[in-house]
């Protein structure tokens, strides 16, 4: 391994396509994570501070709070699938392109 070269990580991190990759992923991942977390936090806080809304019967005896829980579980599951498809379609491709670029030595 005589020709092993040291990667200049600092330079790679400054690369335009890397910055673009980082931005795209952060926007999607962090954005959705914050949205999902805030949405979930609305249950304990809402149940505590607007109890009348969360107690309201919506379908038969089923109340708003219960529907909120079910919706929350379903949304979490759906988000995981949405992210999975997005990553396969968008971020994985960007990563591949970027690695190819580094390999070419641009």
């Amino acid at each position, binding site marked *: 391994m005589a020709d092993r070269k040291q990667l200049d990580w600092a330079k790679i991190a400054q690369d335009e396509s890397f910055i673009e990759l980082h931005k795209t*992923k952060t926007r999607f991942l962090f954005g959705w994570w914050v949205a999902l977390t805030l949405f979930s936090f609305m249950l304990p806080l809402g149940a505590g501070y607007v109890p009348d809304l969360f107690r309201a019967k919506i379908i038969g005896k089923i109340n708003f709070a219960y529907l909120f829980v079910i919706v929350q579980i379903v949304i979490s599951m759906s988000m995981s699938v949405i992210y999975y498809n997005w990553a396969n379609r968008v971020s994985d491709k960007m990563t591949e392109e970027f690695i190819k670029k580094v390999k070419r030595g641009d």
Partner: protein
Amino acid sequence: MKRITFKIALILISTLLMGGVLGSVVTGDMNVLIGEAVASQSAQPAPVSGKIEANRALTIPMFIIVITITLGIVYWAAKRTHTTSDFYAARSSITGTQNGWAIAGDFMSAATFLGVPGLIALFGFDGLYWAIGPMLAFATILFLAAEPLRNLGKYTLGDILTLRGSEIPVRSTVAFTTFILCIMYLITQLVGAGQLMRLLLGIPYEVSVIGTGILMIIYVLFGGMIATTWVQIIKAVFLMSGGVILFIIAGVKLGFNPVKLFEGVVASTAVQDWVQTGLLKHAVADPGFDYGQRFIEPGLFIKNPWDQLSNCIGFLFGTAATPHILMRFFTVPDAKAARKSVVVAMLLIGGFFLMIASFIGFGAALFAMPQTVLKAGGGGNMASLILGKLLGSEVAPWIGDMLLAYLCAVAFATILAVVSGVVLAGAGGLAHDFYVNIVKKGKCEQREQMKAARIFAIVVGTIGVILTLMCEKQNVAHLGVLAFGIAASGNFPALMLALFWKKTSTSGVIAALLAGTIASVGLVLVSPTMEYPKVIAAQANKIVETLEKKQAEGIVLSEKEAATLAKARKDYEANKNKTSIIGLDKPLIPLKNPGIVAAPIGFLAGIIFSLLLPNRREEEAYSEIHVRLHTGKAISETVGQ
């Protein structure tokens, strides 16, 4: 030679276990508690009544089948476990889907399968928070942790935290917190196992704890991560099938109509009575108050919304940084597989929770009834088992027996699989982080590394078993809260700062780990999670006063009220002069879960110490972490590094 020793060990242990299990068939009375509890319901107005006859002849063989299958897996895995990569990370050869099942298995402990339906059956709506917390936790893992962990890590949390920091201080701190955390988690699981087996089968506490302990050590010792993963996968399949069966039998009775389910729950006199006297402690019914509807409204278990939020935060951050869950991401080959595994796990766990949140949990409240569930013992843990037995027996008695036996076997497999994962994680912390990288400074041959891993697996397992034997009569709920608290407030901030913040320094990582851990322990010790005898005495006294006042007014107490009065007097006498473990009369803070305070303390400590004691070299080294976090090993391989 080695092979023969292994075989002998297997045979010895299996004989020992089966002997112990079969021995207790002859002694003791199976399922006395469930039997009594369910039989007593015929006295109450309830939609279903039925007598339970337990069947050990069915349950024991199922346990033996579980033990045989898992030991078979261990034997198969042992032949494939030669290096530390096999032992800690199953050679990173597990596929995304397989790992997804294993993660679901790792997360869904007996606390999920038995505990959450129990909480719902006892506290109604509030039990559902234990289904929401995990979903949020896995979203956090998926979006923030899984892929970076795979891209950067090797075997343990320590590997990630020392990517740019100095080895010794960080490794020793993280090995210490990992060890403490694993032991606490182990104790809660094993105490649960011991109590469960005693309740279900009349097996003495010590026998089941030691038996479970021996099995878990064998799994880890010989089969390492390969065996642990496959035991976990098989257990997850068992667990899901158990859930589906319960869901179907309870659902069919109600035509799979949730509206009908909740109408039933609200109209159930048992539930109404439970909410009035059991939960709200209204000695006399409040006229016009809908006690049935109250059951499906929030706030019967945790009243303070901030406490509930704190509970969610504990889950949210804690799960992502629990060592045995974290380790699972090193068993897959790349980030893509890591991603897929979380998605599979979320679909499985979400599906399971949807079943629990509907016909299983509230079905248990409706059909098995809160009073019965409480009486059956185990803090509500018997709810889904009673439900299965009850509804199965309606079809045919033998179906009820079969179903109960099957569900018991599922619970048993669940406990075995989870404790094995925890022992492996604890051994990883001590052997890989502490022994190999600190004591031996990373200069250690494979053989010696493997030896260390195995010795520490025995050490962790044995300590867990010994402490569990000492905790038989203790309430260990706070240990579970504590384990999650440390993970959420110490490990998680340290991990996030190390992964995503350029300025994080060694001092910052250590500060986050220690401050978060100390804050969690300190807060839990003064929190309402601990037992405060004087508070219990005060509650009992209130009931005594109300009922005595009623008597003084010349009203004759009903039989039930008289019993309540007698029990309250007894509770008052037993508790009035005692204090909590650290000598408190009442909790100093209102929060049961430390997350909302301790996690920010962990983050703040990490940030402040990184800024106060910065390290230029570490800051510069971040570029590499930053790039590899997104690209994984591929980037180094492309240029032959």
